Protein backbone atom coordinates (compact mmCIF):
# COMPACT_ATOMS: atom_id res chain seq x y z
CA UNK A 1 0.00 0.00 0.00
CA UNK A 2 1.55 3.26 -1.08
CA UNK A 3 -1.11 5.74 0.04
CA UNK A 4 -1.59 7.08 -3.47
CA UNK A 5 -4.17 9.69 -2.54
CA UNK A 6 -1.81 11.10 0.00
CA UNK A 7 1.18 11.04 -2.33
CA UNK A 8 -0.79 12.85 -5.04
CA UNK A 9 -1.93 15.56 -2.68
CA UNK A 10 1.52 16.15 -1.27
CA UNK A 11 3.11 16.35 -4.73
CA UNK A 12 0.49 18.93 -5.69
CA UNK A 13 1.46 20.96 -2.66
CA UNK A 14 5.16 20.64 -3.46
CA UNK A 15 4.40 21.86 -7.00
CA UNK A 16 2.68 24.91 -5.52
CA UNK A 17 5.69 25.63 -3.31
CA UNK A 18 8.02 25.43 -6.31
CA UNK A 19 5.77 27.84 -8.23
CA UNK A 20 5.59 30.22 -5.30
CA UNK A 21 9.38 30.17 -5.08
CA UNK A 22 9.68 31.06 -8.78
CA UNK A 23 7.15 33.89 -8.53
CA UNK A 24 8.84 35.38 -5.46
CA UNK A 25 12.28 35.12 -7.06
CA UNK A 26 10.95 36.83 -10.16
CA UNK A 27 9.41 39.62 -8.06
CA UNK A 28 12.76 40.18 -6.36
CA UNK A 29 14.50 40.35 -9.71
CA UNK A 30 11.91 42.75 -11.15
CA UNK A 31 12.01 45.04 -8.15
CA UNK A 32 15.77 45.61 -8.41
CA UNK A 33 15.72 45.95 -12.20
CA UNK A 34 12.92 48.49 -11.97
CA UNK A 35 14.96 50.38 -9.43
CA UNK A 36 17.96 50.46 -11.78
CA UNK A 37 15.99 51.75 -14.69
CA UNK A 38 13.76 53.99 -12.57
CA UNK A 39 10.59 52.27 -13.75
CA UNK A 40 7.93 53.67 -11.43
CA UNK A 41 4.95 52.24 -13.29
CA UNK A 42 6.43 48.75 -13.11
CA UNK A 43 6.99 49.24 -9.37
CA UNK A 44 3.34 50.18 -8.85
CA UNK A 45 2.31 47.09 -10.79
CA UNK A 46 4.64 44.90 -8.74
CA UNK A 47 3.11 46.20 -5.52
CA UNK A 48 -0.30 45.22 -6.82
CA UNK A 49 0.94 41.81 -7.89
CA UNK A 50 2.03 41.02 -4.31
CA UNK A 51 -1.61 40.12 -3.69
CA UNK A 52 -1.11 37.14 -5.97
CA UNK A 53 1.79 35.91 -3.85
CA UNK A 54 -0.36 36.23 -0.73
CA UNK A 55 -3.14 34.28 -2.39
CA UNK A 56 -0.77 31.49 -3.38
CA UNK A 57 0.49 31.27 0.18
CA UNK A 58 -3.02 31.07 1.63
CA UNK A 59 -3.91 28.37 -0.86
CA UNK A 60 -0.90 26.31 0.18
CA UNK A 61 -1.76 26.78 3.84
CA UNK A 62 -5.33 25.65 3.22
CA UNK A 63 -4.20 22.58 1.29
CA UNK A 64 -1.86 21.63 4.12
CA UNK A 65 -4.53 21.99 6.77
CA UNK A 66 -6.94 19.90 4.71
CA UNK A 67 -4.31 17.24 4.32
CA UNK A 68 -3.62 17.19 8.06
CA UNK A 69 -7.32 17.03 8.88
CA UNK A 70 -8.14 14.29 6.41
CA UNK A 71 -5.00 12.17 6.18
CA UNK A 72 -3.42 12.48 9.64
CA UNK A 73 0.19 12.54 8.49
CA UNK A 74 2.84 11.43 10.97
CA UNK A 75 6.64 11.22 11.10
CA UNK A 76 8.33 12.45 7.88
CA UNK A 77 4.97 13.25 6.32
CA UNK A 78 4.06 15.42 9.25
CA UNK A 79 7.43 17.17 9.32
CA UNK A 80 7.15 17.87 5.63
CA UNK A 81 3.71 19.43 5.93
CA UNK A 82 4.80 21.52 8.91
CA UNK A 83 7.80 22.69 6.88
CA UNK A 84 5.65 23.55 3.89
CA UNK A 85 3.56 25.80 6.12
CA UNK A 86 6.65 27.58 7.34
CA UNK A 87 8.40 27.79 3.97
CA UNK A 88 5.28 29.29 2.41
CA UNK A 89 5.35 31.97 5.08
CA UNK A 90 9.05 32.66 4.48
CA UNK A 91 8.50 32.95 0.74
CA UNK A 92 5.60 35.31 1.26
CA UNK A 93 7.84 37.49 3.46
CA UNK A 94 10.52 37.57 0.74
CA UNK A 95 7.71 38.64 -1.59
CA UNK A 96 7.01 41.46 0.87
CA UNK A 97 10.69 42.50 0.69
CA UNK A 98 10.34 42.76 -3.11
CA UNK A 99 7.23 44.86 -2.55
CA UNK A 100 9.22 46.98 -0.08
CA UNK A 101 11.92 47.59 -2.71
CA UNK A 102 9.21 48.67 -5.19
CA UNK A 103 7.82 51.09 -2.58
CA UNK A 104 11.33 52.55 -2.00
CA UNK A 105 11.63 52.91 -5.77
CA UNK A 106 8.46 55.02 -5.80
CA UNK A 107 9.67 56.92 -2.73
CA UNK A 108 12.87 57.96 -4.56
CA UNK A 109 10.57 59.10 -7.33
CA UNK A 110 11.79 60.98 -10.36
CA UNK A 111 15.15 61.86 -8.81
CA UNK A 112 18.16 60.11 -10.29
CA UNK A 113 19.97 57.54 -8.15
CA UNK A 114 22.99 58.68 -6.15
CA UNK A 115 25.17 56.30 -8.12
CA UNK A 116 24.71 53.51 -10.67
CA UNK A 117 23.74 50.25 -8.92
CA UNK A 118 26.56 47.68 -8.79
CA UNK A 119 26.51 45.73 -5.55
CA UNK A 120 22.72 45.74 -5.02
CA UNK A 121 21.98 43.76 -8.24
CA UNK A 122 24.72 41.34 -7.20
CA UNK A 123 23.11 40.90 -3.80
CA UNK A 124 19.81 40.33 -5.55
CA UNK A 125 21.25 37.68 -7.86
CA UNK A 126 22.83 35.86 -4.89
CA UNK A 127 19.64 35.92 -2.89
CA UNK A 128 17.60 34.60 -5.80
CA UNK A 129 20.07 31.83 -6.50
CA UNK A 130 19.97 30.73 -2.86
CA UNK A 131 16.19 30.91 -2.77
CA UNK A 132 15.65 28.77 -5.83
CA UNK A 133 18.22 26.22 -4.70
CA UNK A 134 16.68 26.02 -1.24
CA UNK A 135 13.18 25.38 -2.56
CA UNK A 136 14.54 22.76 -4.94
CA UNK A 137 16.48 21.11 -2.11
CA UNK A 138 13.22 20.94 -0.15
CA UNK A 139 11.30 19.30 -2.95
CA UNK A 140 14.13 16.83 -3.56
CA UNK A 141 14.58 16.25 0.23
CA UNK A 142 18.28 17.02 -0.17
CA UNK A 143 19.65 17.90 3.27
CA UNK A 144 23.26 18.09 2.07
CA UNK A 145 22.37 20.74 -0.50
CA UNK A 146 20.43 22.64 2.14
CA UNK A 147 23.42 22.61 4.48
CA UNK A 148 25.68 24.05 1.71
CA UNK A 149 23.43 26.98 0.83
CA UNK A 150 23.93 29.28 3.87
CA UNK A 151 27.61 29.72 2.97
CA UNK A 152 26.53 31.88 0.08
CA UNK A 153 24.73 34.15 2.51
CA UNK A 154 28.11 35.36 3.77
CA UNK A 155 28.79 37.03 0.43
CA UNK A 156 25.48 38.83 0.63
CA UNK A 157 26.36 40.02 4.13
CA UNK A 158 29.73 41.30 2.86
CA UNK A 159 28.12 43.10 -0.08
CA UNK A 160 25.64 44.61 2.36
CA UNK A 161 28.53 46.04 4.41
CA UNK A 162 30.13 47.51 1.24
CA UNK A 163 26.85 49.16 0.26
CA UNK A 164 26.46 50.53 3.78
CA UNK A 165 29.96 52.02 3.73
CA UNK A 166 29.47 53.60 0.31
CA UNK A 167 26.16 55.16 1.28
CA UNK A 168 27.44 56.51 4.58
CA UNK A 169 30.25 58.12 2.57
CA UNK A 170 27.62 59.87 0.41
CA UNK A 171 25.71 61.08 3.43
CA UNK A 172 28.83 62.46 5.09
CA UNK A 173 29.79 64.25 1.88
CA UNK A 174 26.34 65.74 1.32
CA UNK A 175 23.82 65.67 4.16
CA UNK A 176 21.14 66.58 1.58
CA UNK A 177 21.52 63.11 0.10
CA UNK A 178 20.34 61.51 3.31
CA UNK A 179 16.88 60.52 2.01
CA UNK A 180 17.91 58.80 -1.25
CA UNK A 181 20.87 57.21 0.52
CA UNK A 182 18.66 55.82 3.28
CA UNK A 183 16.27 54.48 0.64
CA UNK A 184 19.03 52.54 -1.05
CA UNK A 185 20.26 51.35 2.33
CA UNK A 186 16.79 49.92 2.97
CA UNK A 187 16.85 48.21 -0.41
CA UNK A 188 20.10 46.51 0.52
CA UNK A 189 18.67 45.68 3.94
CA UNK A 190 15.65 43.97 2.33
CA UNK A 191 17.95 41.88 0.16
CA UNK A 192 20.08 40.95 3.13
CA UNK A 193 16.96 39.90 5.07
CA UNK A 194 15.83 37.81 2.11
CA UNK A 195 19.05 35.85 2.41
CA UNK A 196 18.32 35.21 6.09
CA UNK A 197 14.84 33.97 5.21
CA UNK A 198 16.35 31.52 2.77
CA UNK A 199 18.51 30.22 5.60
CA UNK A 200 15.33 29.49 7.56
CA UNK A 201 14.04 27.55 4.57
CA UNK A 202 17.25 25.51 4.58
CA UNK A 203 16.72 24.73 8.26
CA UNK A 204 13.25 23.39 7.41
CA UNK A 205 14.71 21.18 4.69
CA UNK A 206 17.11 19.61 7.18
CA UNK A 207 14.30 19.19 9.73
CA UNK A 208 12.10 17.51 7.17
CA UNK A 209 14.72 15.01 6.16
CA UNK A 210 16.41 14.25 9.48
CA UNK A 211 14.03 15.50 12.17
CA UNK A 212 16.92 17.58 13.47
CA UNK A 213 16.22 21.14 14.61
CA UNK A 214 19.28 23.16 13.49
CA UNK A 215 20.15 26.85 13.52
CA UNK A 216 22.17 27.72 10.46
CA UNK A 217 22.15 31.52 11.02
Amino acid sequence: MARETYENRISEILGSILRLGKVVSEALKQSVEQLSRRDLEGAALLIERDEEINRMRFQIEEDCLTLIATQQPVATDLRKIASVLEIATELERIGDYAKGIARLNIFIGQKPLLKPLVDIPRMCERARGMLEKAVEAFVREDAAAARAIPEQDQLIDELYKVVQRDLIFFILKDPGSIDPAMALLWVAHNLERSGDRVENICERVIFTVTGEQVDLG
Partner: protein
Amino acid sequence: MEETTGACRLRTIGYKLWYGDFCALHETTLDIPSNRITAIIGPSGCGKSTFIRTFNRMNELIPGVRVAGEVLLDGQDIFRLDVVELRRLVGMVFQKPNPFPKTIFDNVAYGPRAHGLRDRNRLAEIVEKSLRSAALWDEVKDDLSKSGLALSGGQQQRLCIARTLAVEPEVILMDEPASALDPIATLKIEELLQTLKKDYTIVIVTHNMQQAARVSDFTAFFMTDENRSGHLIEYGPTSRVFTNPREKTTEDYISGRFS
Protein backbone atom coordinates in the same frame (compact mmCIF):
# COMPACT_ATOMS: atom_id res chain seq x y z
CA MET B 1 15.65 2.43 27.37
CA GLU B 2 17.32 5.74 27.53
CA GLU B 3 14.19 7.85 27.42
CA THR B 4 12.02 6.29 30.11
CA THR B 5 11.91 8.60 33.06
CA GLY B 6 11.02 7.82 36.64
CA ALA B 7 10.65 4.44 38.26
CA CYS B 8 10.15 1.44 36.06
CA ARG B 9 7.31 -0.82 37.09
CA LEU B 10 7.43 -3.64 34.59
CA ARG B 11 10.50 -4.91 32.85
CA THR B 12 11.13 -7.70 30.40
CA ILE B 13 14.63 -8.96 29.85
CA GLY B 14 15.25 -11.16 26.84
CA TYR B 15 11.67 -12.37 27.05
CA LYS B 16 10.68 -14.88 24.36
CA LEU B 17 7.49 -16.81 23.74
CA TRP B 18 6.65 -19.90 21.68
CA TYR B 19 3.38 -21.51 20.68
CA GLY B 20 4.60 -25.08 20.40
CA ASP B 21 7.62 -24.83 18.10
CA PHE B 22 6.57 -21.50 16.64
CA CYS B 23 8.40 -18.53 18.08
CA ALA B 24 5.65 -15.92 18.36
CA LEU B 25 7.74 -13.29 20.08
CA HIS B 26 11.46 -12.73 19.72
CA GLU B 27 13.69 -11.56 22.51
CA THR B 28 12.09 -8.49 23.97
CA THR B 29 13.77 -6.22 26.47
CA LEU B 30 11.61 -3.35 27.57
CA ASP B 31 11.08 -1.12 30.59
CA ILE B 32 7.59 0.10 31.31
CA PRO B 33 7.64 3.21 33.50
CA SER B 34 5.21 3.64 36.37
CA ASN B 35 2.36 6.14 36.22
CA ARG B 36 2.70 6.41 32.48
CA ILE B 37 0.67 5.08 29.59
CA THR B 38 2.64 2.80 27.33
CA ALA B 39 1.06 1.95 23.99
CA ILE B 40 1.87 -1.23 22.09
CA ILE B 41 1.24 -0.89 18.37
CA GLY B 42 1.85 -3.06 15.35
CA PRO B 43 0.04 -5.02 12.64
CA SER B 44 -2.20 -8.02 13.42
CA GLY B 45 -0.25 -11.06 14.51
CA CYS B 46 2.84 -9.11 15.53
CA GLY B 47 2.62 -10.47 19.06
CA LYS B 48 1.44 -7.33 20.79
CA SER B 49 -1.54 -8.98 22.50
CA THR B 50 0.65 -11.93 23.38
CA PHE B 51 3.18 -9.54 24.84
CA ILE B 52 0.68 -7.71 27.04
CA ARG B 53 -0.86 -11.00 28.24
CA THR B 54 2.56 -11.89 29.55
CA PHE B 55 2.25 -9.47 32.42
CA ASN B 56 -0.74 -11.18 34.06
CA ARG B 57 0.24 -14.62 32.77
CA MET B 58 -2.96 -15.04 30.78
CA ASN B 59 -0.90 -16.76 28.10
CA GLU B 60 -0.69 -19.76 30.39
CA LEU B 61 -4.34 -20.49 29.61
CA ILE B 62 -3.38 -21.18 26.01
CA PRO B 63 -2.16 -24.70 25.24
CA GLY B 64 1.45 -25.19 24.22
CA VAL B 65 2.80 -21.81 25.32
CA ARG B 66 6.41 -21.72 26.43
CA VAL B 67 8.40 -18.71 27.59
CA ALA B 68 12.01 -17.79 28.27
CA GLY B 69 13.71 -14.78 29.76
CA GLU B 70 12.74 -12.63 32.70
CA VAL B 71 9.67 -10.56 33.40
CA LEU B 72 9.85 -8.38 36.49
CA LEU B 73 7.14 -6.52 38.36
CA ASP B 74 8.74 -4.04 40.76
CA GLY B 75 11.88 -6.12 40.51
CA GLN B 76 10.17 -9.41 41.34
CA ASP B 77 10.07 -12.31 38.91
CA ILE B 78 6.39 -12.67 37.96
CA PHE B 79 6.79 -16.37 37.23
CA ARG B 80 7.71 -16.94 40.89
CA LEU B 81 4.74 -14.93 42.18
CA ASP B 82 1.49 -16.73 42.93
CA VAL B 83 -0.57 -16.28 39.78
CA VAL B 84 -3.69 -15.25 41.70
CA GLU B 85 -1.74 -12.56 43.56
CA LEU B 86 -0.06 -11.44 40.33
CA ARG B 87 -3.45 -10.96 38.68
CA ARG B 88 -4.62 -8.85 41.59
CA LEU B 89 -1.60 -6.59 41.09
CA VAL B 90 -1.87 -6.57 37.32
CA GLY B 91 -5.45 -6.04 36.15
CA MET B 92 -6.73 -6.43 32.64
CA VAL B 93 -9.42 -4.86 30.50
CA PHE B 94 -10.37 -6.81 27.40
CA GLN B 95 -11.17 -5.86 23.85
CA LYS B 96 -14.87 -6.63 24.07
CA PRO B 97 -16.59 -5.38 27.21
CA ASN B 98 -17.19 -8.53 29.27
CA PRO B 99 -19.24 -7.69 32.35
CA PHE B 100 -20.52 -10.73 34.20
CA PRO B 101 -24.26 -11.43 33.94
CA LYS B 102 -24.67 -9.94 37.39
CA THR B 103 -25.75 -6.61 38.83
CA ILE B 104 -23.52 -3.57 38.48
CA PHE B 105 -22.75 -3.77 42.19
CA ASP B 106 -21.85 -7.45 42.05
CA ASN B 107 -19.68 -6.93 38.99
CA VAL B 108 -17.53 -4.40 40.80
CA ALA B 109 -17.60 -6.28 44.10
CA TYR B 110 -16.63 -9.52 42.38
CA GLY B 111 -12.87 -9.06 42.71
CA PRO B 112 -12.80 -7.94 46.35
CA ARG B 113 -15.19 -10.78 47.25
CA ALA B 114 -13.01 -13.29 45.44
CA HIS B 115 -10.13 -12.04 47.55
CA GLY B 116 -12.11 -12.68 50.71
CA LEU B 117 -13.78 -9.38 51.58
CA ARG B 118 -17.23 -9.96 53.09
CA ASP B 119 -18.00 -6.74 54.98
CA ARG B 120 -20.95 -5.10 53.17
CA ASN B 121 -20.07 -1.56 54.14
CA ARG B 122 -16.49 -1.93 52.96
CA LEU B 123 -17.73 -3.47 49.70
CA ALA B 124 -20.17 -0.62 49.15
CA GLU B 125 -17.34 1.87 49.70
CA ILE B 126 -15.09 0.09 47.24
CA VAL B 127 -17.85 -0.17 44.64
CA GLU B 128 -18.59 3.54 44.85
CA LYS B 129 -14.92 4.53 44.76
CA SER B 130 -14.18 2.28 41.80
CA LEU B 131 -17.21 3.44 39.84
CA ARG B 132 -16.24 7.05 40.53
CA SER B 133 -12.68 6.43 39.35
CA ALA B 134 -14.05 4.81 36.21
CA ALA B 135 -16.26 7.88 35.60
CA LEU B 136 -19.39 5.76 35.73
CA TRP B 137 -20.80 6.52 39.17
CA ASP B 138 -23.01 9.43 38.14
CA GLU B 139 -24.59 7.38 35.39
CA VAL B 140 -25.38 4.29 37.47
CA LYS B 141 -25.55 5.31 41.13
CA ASP B 142 -29.35 5.02 41.21
CA ASP B 143 -29.54 1.53 39.77
CA LEU B 144 -26.61 -0.46 41.06
CA SER B 145 -28.86 -3.51 41.13
CA LYS B 146 -29.43 -3.34 37.40
CA SER B 147 -27.68 -5.99 35.33
CA GLY B 148 -24.27 -4.97 34.02
CA LEU B 149 -25.35 -6.29 30.64
CA ALA B 150 -28.12 -3.67 30.45
CA LEU B 151 -25.55 -0.87 30.08
CA SER B 152 -24.38 0.57 26.77
CA GLY B 153 -21.13 -0.71 25.25
CA GLY B 154 -19.11 2.26 26.48
CA GLN B 155 -20.63 2.00 29.96
CA GLN B 156 -19.97 -1.72 30.03
CA GLN B 157 -16.31 -1.10 29.26
CA ARG B 158 -16.10 1.49 32.03
CA LEU B 159 -17.81 -1.03 34.32
CA CYS B 160 -15.06 -3.50 33.43
CA ILE B 161 -12.48 -0.83 34.23
CA ALA B 162 -14.20 -0.18 37.57
CA ARG B 163 -14.22 -3.93 38.23
CA THR B 164 -10.48 -3.98 37.61
CA LEU B 165 -9.85 -0.93 39.82
CA ALA B 166 -11.81 -2.52 42.67
CA VAL B 167 -8.98 -4.94 43.47
CA GLU B 168 -6.53 -2.03 43.63
CA PRO B 169 -4.00 -3.19 41.07
CA GLU B 170 -0.71 -1.44 40.35
CA VAL B 171 -0.80 -2.04 36.64
CA ILE B 172 -3.73 -2.06 34.24
CA LEU B 173 -3.35 -3.90 30.96
CA MET B 174 -5.75 -2.93 28.21
CA ASP B 175 -6.15 -5.03 25.11
CA GLU B 176 -7.69 -2.73 22.50
CA PRO B 177 -10.18 -1.44 25.06
CA ALA B 178 -12.00 0.90 22.69
CA SER B 179 -12.01 -1.04 19.44
CA ALA B 180 -15.61 -2.17 19.94
CA LEU B 181 -16.85 1.29 20.95
CA ASP B 182 -18.22 4.28 19.10
CA PRO B 183 -16.11 7.47 18.88
CA ILE B 184 -17.74 9.22 21.82
CA ALA B 185 -17.43 6.22 24.11
CA THR B 186 -13.84 5.87 22.87
CA LEU B 187 -13.11 9.47 23.78
CA LYS B 188 -14.49 8.94 27.27
CA ILE B 189 -12.21 5.96 27.79
CA GLU B 190 -9.24 7.93 26.48
CA GLU B 191 -9.97 10.83 28.82
CA LEU B 192 -10.39 8.36 31.66
CA LEU B 193 -6.93 6.93 30.97
CA GLN B 194 -5.39 10.34 31.53
CA THR B 195 -6.86 10.55 35.04
CA LEU B 196 -6.09 6.91 35.84
CA LYS B 197 -2.40 7.23 35.07
CA LYS B 198 -1.94 9.35 38.17
CA ASP B 199 -2.51 6.23 40.25
CA TYR B 200 -1.80 3.36 37.89
CA THR B 201 0.69 2.18 35.33
CA ILE B 202 -1.17 1.52 32.10
CA VAL B 203 -0.17 -0.64 29.16
CA ILE B 204 -2.51 -0.43 26.20
CA VAL B 205 -2.56 -2.43 22.99
CA THR B 206 -4.21 -0.59 20.15
CA HIS B 207 -4.75 -0.98 16.43
CA ASN B 208 -5.56 2.67 16.19
CA MET B 209 -2.33 4.61 15.78
CA GLN B 210 -4.00 7.96 16.30
CA GLN B 211 -5.25 6.61 19.58
CA ALA B 212 -1.76 5.53 20.58
CA ALA B 213 -0.49 8.99 19.61
CA ARG B 214 -3.28 10.71 21.54
CA VAL B 215 -3.21 8.81 24.80
CA SER B 216 0.21 7.36 25.41
CA ASP B 217 3.47 8.66 26.83
CA PHE B 218 5.58 5.86 25.39
CA THR B 219 5.09 3.75 22.32
CA ALA B 220 6.48 0.33 21.52
CA PHE B 221 6.21 -0.85 17.93
CA PHE B 222 6.13 -4.58 17.17
CA MET B 223 6.41 -6.07 13.72
CA THR B 224 6.37 -9.54 12.19
CA ASP B 225 9.37 -10.90 10.31
CA GLU B 226 9.27 -13.21 7.28
CA ASN B 227 8.54 -16.19 9.61
CA ARG B 228 5.58 -14.31 11.11
CA SER B 229 7.37 -14.03 14.46
CA GLY B 230 6.96 -10.80 16.38
CA HIS B 231 9.86 -8.44 17.04
CA LEU B 232 10.10 -5.27 19.07
CA ILE B 233 11.28 -2.77 16.47
CA GLU B 234 11.27 0.52 18.31
CA TYR B 235 10.42 1.88 21.72
CA GLY B 236 10.52 5.46 22.89
CA PRO B 237 8.53 8.54 23.89
CA THR B 238 5.36 8.74 21.83
CA SER B 239 6.13 12.31 20.77
CA ARG B 240 9.37 11.18 19.20
CA VAL B 241 8.12 7.93 17.71
CA PHE B 242 5.31 9.73 15.91
CA THR B 243 7.33 12.72 14.70
CA ASN B 244 10.74 11.27 14.13
CA PRO B 245 10.91 7.47 14.33
CA ARG B 246 14.40 5.99 14.24
CA GLU B 247 13.52 2.91 12.25
CA LYS B 248 12.40 2.92 8.66
CA THR B 249 9.90 0.11 9.43
CA THR B 250 8.27 2.21 12.13
CA GLU B 251 8.04 5.18 9.79
CA ASP B 252 6.47 3.07 7.06
CA TYR B 253 3.99 1.53 9.45
CA ILE B 254 2.81 4.67 11.22
CA SER B 255 2.61 6.69 8.02
CA GLY B 256 0.49 3.98 6.41
CA ARG B 257 3.03 2.78 3.88
CA PHE B 258 3.21 -0.67 5.36
CA SER B 259 2.79 -3.46 2.85
